[in-house]
């Protein structure tokens, strides 16, 4: 009985044959809807901040330099490739690429930074149309994430101060 089962087990192995893939010597294409590294399109982005508000990993930072210039930075270190940023972007400025071989020893390699020219009316955050109340902007107005340390700052302001909010994670909410 047990011998028979050994024969059967051997058959399972023999029938399978060799299954190891030659990856990475030969590339291995992924499925079409695979979610790899998100790519930001500076030409389409309007700087509404919707992606930053809805990134579960808090990997998209926004920093208002002055009235007209807003910097958006995708840090990408903790990014889980969940694709929520691409989901909520009203301008379809984010594409989930099929790029998954992102291991690097220079962490800045994966980051993307966009400088956006903003027209004045867009400060209120209203240009982000949330799919449901669950996605609404958490921080309206001006945001001052800490670009020097790649850190999200939990707070935003209704006015643009000359003092930077760097290293201050408990500035007043408006």
């Amino acid at each position: 009985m047990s011998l028979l089962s050994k024969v059967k087990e051997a058959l399972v192995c023999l029938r399978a044959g060799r299954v190891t893939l030659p990856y990475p010597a030969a590339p291995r294409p992924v499925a079409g809807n695979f979610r790899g590294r998100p790519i930001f399109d500076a030409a389409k982005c309007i700087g509404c901040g919707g992606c930053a508000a809805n990134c579960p990993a808090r990997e998209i930072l926004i920093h208002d330099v002055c009235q007209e210039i807003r910097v958006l930075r995708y840090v990408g270190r903790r990014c889980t490739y969940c694709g929520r940023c691409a989901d909520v972007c009203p301008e379809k400025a984010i594409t989930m690429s099929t790029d998954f071989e992102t291991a690097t020893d220079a962490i800045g390699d994966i980051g993307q930074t966009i400088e956006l020219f903003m027209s004045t009316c867009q400060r209120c955050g209203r240009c982000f149309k949330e799919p449901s109340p669950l996605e609404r902007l958490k921080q309206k107005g001006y945001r001052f994430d800490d670009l020097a340390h790649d850190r999200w700052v939990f707070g935003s302001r209704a006015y643009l101060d000359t003092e930077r909010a760097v290293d201050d994670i408990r500035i007043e909410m408006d």
Partner: protein
Amino acid sequence: MSIAMAERAKLEALRARFGAAIRRADLPGNGRMFVTVDPAAIREICRHVFREMGARYVISIGADDRPFSGEFLVAHNFAFDGDGVLCGLLAHLPGDRPALDSISDVVPAANWAEREFRDLVGIEPMGHRYPKRLVLPDGWPEGVHPLRKDVSWDDVPKDFDEDLEFKFDEAPDGCVVVPFGPFHPTLDEPAHFRLYVEGEMVRGCEYRGFMAHRGIEKLAESVLSYNDIPMMAERICGICGCVHSVAYVQAVEDAAGVRVPERAEYIRTIMLEMERLHSHLLWVGLACHIVGFDTLFMQSFRIREPIMWMAERMTGNRKTYALCLVGGVRWDIAPETGAALRGVLDTLEKEWRGVVDAVTGDRNIQARTRGVGVAGPDLVKDVGLVGPVARASGVAIDCRRDHPYAAYGRVAFEVITERGGDVWSRIVVRMKEVFESIGIIRQCLDKMSPGPIQARVDDELPVGRMGLSSVEAPRGEAHHFLVTGEGNRPRRWRVRAPTYQNLQGVPAMIRDQQLADMTIALGSIDPCFSCTDRMETVDVRSGLRRTWTQEDLVRLLKKGGA
């Protein structure tokens, strides 16, 4: 008897027995019961519910409700599996004196949960027989309770001594201590067991875990928002992530009364079963690996791989599907994908039958696993064991049938049980469950019709509502408790993974067994731990003990080896 009638009958029974101690009851009529009771009577009520009314213990939750009601809240959750009712027994405690009677002498399964809310919320379970710290490390200062609302998510107390060593209990007379873990060749994740060994026989053990508690609940309650949490919930477990993401969104939907479209429920069901397939195949492989049968380990993984590829095609990723949002799912299943999935299932079924056929006759595996790590029905009841471990002891509990969620109420399947209660029975249960899962996915593909996959959520979710959700993970019931809150995020979210209960059964399962059987007995509950930061080495030649701290290890790594 309908579920609503069963709920009312239970409530009447409680009222008849305890009268005014039952202060308030909320029966939403969907298989949930929230009964607010007099804290002074909590122990007796829990005993009655657990012993007399035959409920299964699920979990206890402590919550800091002071900013909203000025009180602390404790919920002891029980399940009436036969009637499809999940019941929370709630006690409100004064904000300045959070203490109530421990129930762990009448409900032994509550041992850990009570110690956990003592650590994290600072609610004292009075009369607990073993009130040792469970989650917090010994170096954490007294009186700082991370889950209290006045403690910020990023606070680290100044007097926290990270390097303080754990204080362990004395080993019983005549026993030597064998440390097992945190790192051990057959443990894929860290947990530390101090085994008390007499000769070759294990007489008992002490467990220390939670070495790198990740604080997910705190983050959810203070930083993330409703629709961020599913992506993080998915990362609670490296294998059954989708389970936690579904359990979380269901708890929100249950609390807020969001109705999920039918197609989304089918898709959730399909992905949950995909997950069970790859988890069970992985586990059978690992079990074989632990007992030294690597051939089958390799074959299980080979057979499993197409499932992973299929999941990638369906959701965009092998493992972290990022599937759920409150009110639905994100990825639809196209007809071609459905057809391809059927093809994968057909091959899997054929190949798996071959393996099962071979293994069931293999005396070597049986010799190694029969009569090992035995858990009888009494232990299942007392410690609250769940999943394949309970079913292998003849206790037919399965949330998919007992508390139907998603589309499980609309498909037919069998709850597999065995009688032996040993490791072998657990292998058999899991091997057979693979076929049931295949059947469930096929039925879902047949039955689902086109339609929306995401409910419209037009208003903010109501505040202060409670929701419960139990999902049958591959390892057993995963239970989530949630209170909705302000600021687009929950006030309290408590996750109980199946291993939380199953691990508590390990000391009893390994008692008076051979030391060599420890690994497979532990492996048989399919444990799921977390990450750790220190280890202990013993130099056998000099007998010198050396404890490696996190800093030592980091230094060693940077140097490139010792």
